[in-house]
């Protein structure tokens, strides 16, 4: 094996580990994303409780679900009831958008590629990188990033499901209930929304599934390599 081959192999390894580092960061950002989604749901519930209480204790014309949209454009239109109708759509949309933007921004800030200058030194740089590597923590990072990568995908699908469900309820209430006066079963709408999100997220989920398997493979390869590397002696 030539010096260029060794450098190239170590570059591949370091790039794979950078990817692992990104996924590990994703594990931590996933918690942020969950917090944003929970806060969004809590905001939506707060508006629902307020609107329902107003409906129960005053002449406010509607309860929140599934009537809020019709309430805003019905015969008793007020500024507030229009805001209520809008909130059904705006709160989930803003929440999910904030979550995705926050995760994306933080994800792009993860520091990677700091090894490149060392590797540019050639074989000595490659050996230096490999000797400095703490293999146990590398394996731990890969395991963590594997879980984070998969769970983030599932949380993202759940977030889209909440958003699409509200959007579907919003649209169905308008089309069936308000426009053509047919009461549509909202359970059906939610099931359809769930299937729709699964279909649209299929490629992303498949990619994550494959990536999880490839991380498993990476662990086994690295375990073998670390054993070989540990028992090898280098002559300079």
């Amino acid at each position, binding site marked *: 094996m030539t010096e260029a081959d060794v450098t190239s192999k170590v570059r591949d390894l370091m790039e794979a580990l950078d990817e692992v580092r990104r996924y590990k960061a994703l594990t931590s950002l996933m918690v942020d994303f969950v*917090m944003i989604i929970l806060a969004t749901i*809590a905001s939506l519930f707060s508006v629902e409780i307020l609107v*329902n209480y107003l*409906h*129960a*204790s005053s002449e406010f014309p509607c309860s929140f679900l599934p009537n809020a949209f019709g309430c805003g454009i019905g015969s008793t239109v007020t500024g507030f009831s229009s805001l209520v109708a809008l909130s059904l759509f705006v709160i989930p949309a803003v929440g999910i958008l904030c979550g995705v933007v926050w995760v994306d921004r933080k994800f792009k800030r993860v520091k990677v590629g700091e090894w490149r200058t060392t590797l540019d030194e050639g074989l000595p740089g490659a050996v230096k990188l490999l000797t400095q590597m703490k293999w146990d923590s590398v394996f731990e990072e890969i395991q963590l990033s594997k879980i984070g990568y998969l769970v983030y995908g599932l949380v993202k699908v759940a977030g889209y499901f909440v958003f699409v469900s509200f959007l579907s309820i919003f649209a169905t209430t308008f089309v069936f209930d308000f426009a053509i006066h047919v009461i549509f079963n909202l359970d059906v709408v939610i099931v359809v929304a769930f299937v729709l999100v699964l279909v649209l997220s299929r490629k992303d989920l498949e990619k994550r599934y494959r990536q999880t398997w490839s991380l498993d493979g990476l662990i086994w390869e690295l375990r073998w390599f670390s054993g070989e590397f540990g028992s090898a002696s280098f002559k300079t």
Partner: protein
Amino acid sequence: MNKAWVVFGLVLLLGIQVTVLSSFHEVYTDGPAYGTTEVCIVKWNYVQASARVAIGGPGSVSVTLPNGTDIAINATTNYSFTLNLPRTGAFSGETGLGVGSIELNESSPITVSIDANITSVPFSNSCSEIVGVQYVDVAVITVVGDAFVSVDVYGVGL
């Protein structure tokens, strides 16, 4: 602050919100009114509710509200009004009550009945029997004339 505590706090908040949301109840009843009709709205006293009553029909009808006010309305224009039924007491621990056809419990703390073509006011039925029962509020609306009555009661029991 540790993120885990924030998540725990949010989950706790959501649990409380779901509990509060489950204490909202809606009851809808409609039916024909002819002769003298008694609309009876019954609720536990810890429930705060709002009743939307709509009356539509071929001509004029006379309506007596729970406070005794008499109003004459032209039902051809689908007359409707809202009654505020305030909370008058705290939760007593009473979980179930049944008087004739009227039943109240924790999951159904509001009930509405419409009795058409009654012969005397107050009519001798479950509604009149439940008036005065402890922890229960009753609102009676009397409609005289031919019409179609719908009652939509929305309330919260906290």
